[in-house]
């Protein structure tokens, strides 16, 4: 299994975590993003995720490389699902393995913050009465300030 993936298939947290080499590892932090039934007061029916796939995959690989630079002993895997998802489905699974827990938590948190900053994936929300594209951050992998913010949130 690849460390990073953009896939239409349902995500399996156990498989993503198991894809990491655990030699020397004492802590694994797994993060799952789930489709929520409410957003900004709207009752959500389902989501559609779309990606610019080759660039999204590069984005995930970049996040893995950034994490390796920050926490050399951490091993990170990130799988993001696209396509139609129901309430409660996992849209993203991150697994960070490390000799010690502080770095595992930090890398896992860093990865989800960075995904929301730089990975070209978009969700369209279908709610009761309409649908809307959700727009978050302007993607810019060269924005050092954004990266520092993700690090601050992760390590603090």
């Amino acid at each position, binding site marked *: 299994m690849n460390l990073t993936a953009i896939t239409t298939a349902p995500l399996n947290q156990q498989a993503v975590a198991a894809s990491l080499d655990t030699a020397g590892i004492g802590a694994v932090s797994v993060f799952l*993003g789930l489709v929520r039934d409410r957003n900004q007061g709207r009752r959500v029916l389902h989501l559609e*995720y*779309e*990606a*610019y796939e*080759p*660039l*999204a995959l*590069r984005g995930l690989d970049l996040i893995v490389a950034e994490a390796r630079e920050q926490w050399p002993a951490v091993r990170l895997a990130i799988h*993001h699902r696209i396509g139609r998802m129901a309430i409660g489905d996992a*849209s*993203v699974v991150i697994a960070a393995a490390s000799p010690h827990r502080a770095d595992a938590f930090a890398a896992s948190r860093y990865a*989800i913050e960075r*995904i*929301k*900053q*730089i*990975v*070209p*994936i*978009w*969700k*369209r929300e279908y709610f009761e009465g309409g649908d809307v*594209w*959700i*727009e*978050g*951050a*302007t*993607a*810019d*992998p*060269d924005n050092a300030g954004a990266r520092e913010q993700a690090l601050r949130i992760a390590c603090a």
Partner: protein
Amino acid sequence: MRVTVRLFARLRDIAGAGELQRDLPAGASVHTVWRSMVSDFPELSAYESSISCAVNADYSRFTAAVADGDEIAFLPPVSGG
């Protein structure tokens, strides 16, 4: 020269297509491509200050020159995770 333009999410909805061809003069930049898109689909101008762009599936600057056969992508603010 001819390039392929890729649009995503709301930009794709506005243009009514996720992939278009554009003929450009020599010396064109990504910005030239974007202006040509806005000219055809004025509603895109709302994204002027918030889009990112990529050339051949790699993030790029709007000042980058484009070459025949390039794939130019315009990306509205992302919302993955």
